Structure formats: structure tokens, C-alpha cells
């Protein structure tokens, strides 16, 4: 592991100022950072511990839930109001990793977690995300786990988060503090960037910019929401395909629908066009299958991940049907 200076900050302003140094990174739960430092993928000069900045509360109001950046994944998933208002969010978080990891990992850390692409994690492989301009070994390599949506000729790495897919359909806002003291609000759908020509630029954060909290606006329809994850093992495995849905029904007619995809895309994926074609239709299996076809219309498969396109379609149809049939 690269040598680094360890900094404990007590205020957000101090943490953000220290993190403005070149080569500085924030440390929260450590489940991504320490892991990637051990394999020399990340080699920071300064590590700033941000778990003691007073960002660990969940504040509930009628309009929204404000989640501190250092709230753990477990705290959020197990919170009674989150379970009641946003079952899709609890389900998504509980489907990821293990209790030990969810107890460590923070909400902001989950949002900022790095891809699990094996070529990104191997410093001897070519990876435009890790080393800009070095190429992408996944394109012609073993790419069974890789993305089919939002891909570019420079990167096809999947965004691994389950929680983020639920955050995307809930239209969460990411609140930040920059080293110059200014605060900013980034809509979730603009937070993660598709790889395009610059896969190493993963999120819309400036260097040293600190996530302070996430605001999830109240959404009455989210009472009928669901997260469905398909993977190689029953537990403790990343998604091959996952789907977050919110369904607002007027009898058997769809008033509005929301659809997010994980495991198949380079960023937490929101299928906005697909949502629009469901509005006003009867909530039938056929309607959900039609929606699935549209959601995957732009998919681009490689040698080993073609199966993900049909898998994602079936996962979408089943997730919507489950939400429709739920007794809420």
C-alpha cells in the first residue's frame, strides 16, 4: 500500500480544505478505498476520515428525508420510515453485500464506490478508467459481467451499486460542500457520468468536494415500489441485472411509472422514455414486456454479455408485475 498521511477532521469545512490538497481522498467506511489501496489501484497521499463530521443523522419531515453522508447503509435500510415510505430503497440496500459491509459502508461512499470490473482492479491490465488512454481490456476480454447500456468504445464497466438504482428512481438530490465554502445540489441523474471519451471522470464532483447529505423527496407512490436483483448466487454477489420500479396505479391503469436498472449499465440507469410509454396504459404483463423492449432498445452487447439484454427485460417485467400485485 502507498504511504499516506492520515487526517482526522472534526468539521466539514476543515475536511474539505484538507481534501483540496493534490492526492487527497476522503475515507468513510473504507470498503472501497482500503480494498483498492491494498491492490495499488488507488494510491492517495492524504486520507481524510470523514466519519466524525456530524453527518450521521437521518432527518425525517413530511416533504423529504435528509440522509447524512456518513449514515451507514444498514442504518438507512433498517430505518422504519425508509422501510415504510421507500421499500425499494431498503430492498435495494439489503440486496447488496453483507451485513458487515453494510454496517461499514456509508451512503456517500456507496454513491462513490468504484466499478468491480476485474481489469480496473488489476494494475497490470489496460483500463481507461484507471489510467486514461491506456485502452480497455474488457472490450475484447472476458466481459460477461459488463454493461450493455451507456457504454462507449473506451469503457464498458458496470456501476455496481444497488442502492444507487433506487436513489435514481426516487429522484434524490446530492448536497455538497466545495473547498471554497460554497454548497451545491446535484440531481442524482446528473451525478454519475457515462464513460464517453473520458471514463476516468466518473462523477460530477470537483476535487475536494464533500458530499454532506442526500435528500429524498417524499413520493407517495413509492409505497408501491420494488427492487428485484438477479445474480449468480443467492447472497453476497453483484447484480447481473437489477430493476427498481415505482408504480402509481389508478385501479388497473398506470398513472405513472418509474424504472431504474442496475448491473447492466455504466451508471445507475434511469429509463425515462420507457416510463412515459407506460403512462395511461393498463398494468398488464404485456405492457410491462413492451416497456422492457423499449428500455433495452439501445443495448450494445459484447462477446459474453449478450444474455444480459433478455435477462434485463425479464427482470423488468417481473419487477413491475410484483409491484402491481403487491398488497399495499
Amino acid at each position, binding site marked *: 500500500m502507498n504511504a499516506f498521511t492520515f487526517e482526522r477532521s472534526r468539521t466539514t469545512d476543515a475536511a474539505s480544505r484538507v481534501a483540496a490538497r493534490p492526492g487527497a481522498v476522503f475515507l468513510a467506511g473504507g470498503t472501497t478505498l482500503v480494498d483498492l489501496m491494498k491492490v495499488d489501484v488507488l494510491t492517495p497521499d492524504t*486520507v481524510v476520515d470523514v466519519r466524525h463530521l456530524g453527518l450521521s443523522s437521518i432527518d425525517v419531515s413530511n416533504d423529504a428525508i435528509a440522509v447524512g453522508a456518513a449514515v451507514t447503509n444498514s442504518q438507512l435500510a433498517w430505518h422504519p420510515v425508509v422501510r415504510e415510505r421507500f421499500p425499494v430503497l431498503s430492498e435495494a440496500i439489503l440486496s447488496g453485500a453483507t451485513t458487515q*459491509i453494510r454496517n*461499514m459502508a456509508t451512503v456517500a461512499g456507496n454513491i462513490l464506490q468504484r466499478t468491480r470490473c476485474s481489469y480496473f482492479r488489476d494494475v497490470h491490465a489496460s483500463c481507461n478508467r484507471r489510467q486514461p488512454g491506456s485502452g480497455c481490456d474488457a472490450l475484447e476480454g472476458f466481459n460477461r459481467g459488463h454493461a450493455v447500456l451507456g457504454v462507449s468504445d473506451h469503457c464498458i464497466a458496470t456501476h455496481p451499486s444497488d442502492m444507487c438504482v433506487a436513489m435514481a428512481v426516487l429522484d434524490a438530490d446530492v448536497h455538497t460542500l466545495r473547498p471554497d465554502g460554497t454548497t451545491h445540489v446535484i440531481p442524482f441523474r446528473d451525478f454519475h457520468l457515462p464513460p464517453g471519451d473520458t471514463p476516468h471522470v466518473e462523477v460530477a464532483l470537483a476535487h475536494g468536494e464533500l458530499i454532506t447529505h442526500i435528500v429524498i423527496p417524499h413520493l407517495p407512490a413509492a409505497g408501491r415500489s420494488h427492487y428485484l436483483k438477479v445474480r449468480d448466487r443467492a*447472497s453476497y454477489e453483484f447484480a447481473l441485472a437489477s430493476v427498481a420500479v415505482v408504480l402509481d396505479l389508478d385501479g388497473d391503469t398506470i398513472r405513472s411509472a418509474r424504472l431504474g436498472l442496475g448491473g447492466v449499465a455504466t451508471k445507475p440507469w434511469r429509463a425515462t422514455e420507457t416510463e412515459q410509454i407506460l403512462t395511461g396504459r393498463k398494468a398488464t404483463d404485456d405492457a410491462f414486456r413492451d416497456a422492457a423492449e423499449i428500455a433495452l432498445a439501445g443495448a450494445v452487447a459484447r462477446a459474453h454479455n449478450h444474455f444480459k439484454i433478455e435477462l434485463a427485460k425479464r427482470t423488468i417485467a417481473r419487477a413491475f408485475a410484483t409491484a402491481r400485485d403487491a398488497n399495499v
Partner: protein
Amino acid sequence: MSPRVLTVREAVGVRTRLRVNDTTHDVSVDSRLTLLDALRDVLGLTGTKKGCDQGACGACTVIIDGQRVLSCLTLAAACEGQHVVTIEGLARGDELHPMQAAFLHCDGFQCGYCTPGQILSAVCAVQEVHAGVPSHVTPDVRRTVNAATLTDEEIRERMSGNLCRCAAYPNIVAAVRQVLANEVPS
């Protein structure tokens, strides 16, 4: 990888107060040291095991401020002000913790290497069940779970962060079940 000799300039020291099993240790450690290596190599508490050392196996599980976590992905310097419980801190003198007794009674291990992590993880899993919180396999996250009706599938899911290469899983589930059945939540 070639051997690497660290110079004084490279080795960045951090003073940290570690509180482990109700004992406070003031130590000066390399910022890169994990809690796992600090427990084993600095404090001599070798009950905590190093399996994969990359957050995959759960052998290094300890309890920090009441929550089960992985000591291999925790920096020792980041534990300032927190209370760590290891397998050495579970028994009260010669009286085993109920989960330790249950693992013995149910034969919840073979080689024993994963056992400290399994037991600490199981202690917390039981507390989580008594708190009523859901898991991935809970049919409705809005409902609370309870010990009396908890399925084996629930126990397996809640313990999925601890691998056992001897595959003592059925007996581990039985040990957790035994404690769930006997323990009155506090």
C-alpha cells in the same frame, strides 16, 4: 512483487487510542495498518483471523460500537474513540457467551479458522433479529421479524458474510437457532 524497504519518510506514523475488550491501548502505528493487523501483530490478540484480507470471507469480523464489521478493511488509525470487541472479549471469565456454547453444543465448526468471525457475526445477527430489522429475504421490509418465526433461509442470509470452507453451515444455522430460541431480548 519485489521486497520493499520502507524509509522513515515513507512510514507515516499515527498515534491512536484503541479500546479493545474494555482495555485501552495507546499505540503509534503506521497509517496503513489495518485493525486486523493491529489486533494480531501489535496487541497479540490472534483470535481474530486473517482469511482473504480483502473483505470477502468474514474471518476477521469484529464488533465495533455494537456493529459487526470487517477488521481487514478498517484502518487502525480510524478506530480512535471506538470500542472494539474481539472473540477474546466475549466470554465472562470461564463462562462462555451463549453463542460460544451453542457452537460447541451444535458442533458448528470443523477446522475452526472461521469460527471467531462466525461467532461474533452470529452474536450481532441475533441482536438484529431481536431488534426486528429485515434482511434481503424478509418478504416485506415494512414488517418486523421475530425470533420465533424466523426461517432458516433468514439465518443463512444474515450469516452470508461469513464463509466456512469446511461447510459446517447446517450446524452454524443450528447454533444461531439455539441462541435465538433461548435468549430473552434485553
